[in-house]
């Protein structure tokens, strides 16, 4: 996008927001939270150093959204924007040369699901925002970190996920669930989350990349600075993929805002449109 287009985009956003003022009393959408590093102007200093817990570990606590620069979505002067959406939401392997290494079975599944317009997507039916797909969905995630437990809250269906840092082993014969069973340990400043026990019927992305109960998922979280988190997602699932693979996504810290629930079953109407 050209510099002038960017200028117009910024100007339009500013004008439009001025025309649509958000009340200071509307939830806490613009509440300046304490503890956020700020510049002299009072704006969040997103380039500030990684915050740390009292024991010196990186602190991932806070709200996060897929790092999707707005400029990627301004296609014309006037900046008529689409929903911000991580490209990995459609295809988790979009940055991998050759894409995900599907087995014949899983490629067949993905191709059929894709050809079917996603009408079988569990997400359409308001199923839980399963990780690792949940990182790429366009709702906010809140991380609450303690020395022995990390809790991830997701706006979609007001869902939660627990990650234990208390030294417990992964279960040996887990009952499969939407988020599976997660433990974590530190590798320097990177938090390494190991997960097993996820369900066979989950999708990794909109196009329907499968994942099975045999999967072992490893997420390596690194808080690069105050405003940015990098997550390497590694999947070892011999039933669905010919070899282990990994992709790296980025999450952007969101401050001075609040979680807003999105309960999908409240008024789901799109399933009917697929008939």
């Amino acid at each position, binding site marked *: 996008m050209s510099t002038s287009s960017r200028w117009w985009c910024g100007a339009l956003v500013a004008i439009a927001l001025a025309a649509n*003022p958000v009340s200071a009393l509307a939830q806490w*959408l613009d509440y300046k939270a304490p503890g956020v590093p700020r510049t002299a102007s009072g704006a969040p200093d997103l380039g500030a150093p990684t915050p740390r817990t009292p024991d010196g570990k990186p602190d991932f606590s806070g709200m996060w959204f897929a790092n*999707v620069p707005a400029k990627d979505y301004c296609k014309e002067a006037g900046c008529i924007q689409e929903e*911000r959406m991580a490209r990995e939401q459609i295809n988790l392997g979009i940055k991998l040369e050759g894409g995900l290494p599907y087995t014949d079975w899983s490629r067949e599944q993905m191709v059929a699901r894709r050809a079917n317009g996603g009408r079988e997507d569990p997400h359409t039916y308001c199923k839980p925002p399963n990780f690792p797909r949940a990182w790429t969905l366009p709702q906010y995630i809140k991380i609450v970190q303690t020395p022995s437990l990390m809790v991830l809250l997701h706006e979609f269906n007001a869902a939660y996920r627990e990650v234990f840092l208390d030294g417990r082993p992964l279960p040996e014969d887990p009952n499969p669930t939407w988020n599976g069973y997660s433990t974590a340990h530190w590798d320097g400043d990177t938090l390494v989350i190991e997960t097993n026990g996820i369900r066979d019927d989950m999708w990794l992305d909109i196009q329907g990349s499968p994942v099975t109960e045999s999967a072992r998922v490893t997420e390596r979280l690194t808080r690069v600075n105050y405003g*940015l988190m990098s997550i390497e997602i590694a999947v070892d699932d011999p039933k669905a993929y010919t070899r282990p693979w990994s992709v790296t996504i980025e999450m952007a810290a969101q401050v001075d805002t609040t979680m807003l629930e999105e309960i*999908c079953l409240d008024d789901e109407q799109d399933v009917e449109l697929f008939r």
Partner: protein
Amino acid sequence: MNRRGVRGLLLVGLSLAVGTVARAHHSQSEFDLDAKVEVQGTVTKLEWKSPHGRLYVDVKNDKGETVSWNFELPSPNTLMRRGWKRDSLKAGDAVIVTGAPARNFPTIAIATAIKDGNGNALFTGTTPVLEPAPIQGEP
């Protein structure tokens, strides 16, 4: 909504729109995104529910009959982050709504732009999400 502000926008020849929306919940293949519908009518209800807000608009068809259109919007949490409130549009408001139609339902569409009865654009498609600073050493 500050109507005077919106008129000011039109004076400089700009047009704001909601933008293609609603990918939060599904693939959108139930809509024909290459097609376009535009209707002019009267708001009967702004439904403030998840996973999608909905704008119901009564429209007179060629025969003079009133037809109720159902326009899909983003979820309320997304709308609120774009500056909407649950009463941003009220029953009786005159609107012109543009959208992509559902493939198999003649009066359902996903909204892409909403204007008032005079053609003045309302709202934007922008979610003001914070973007992190570049990592040191990167362009």
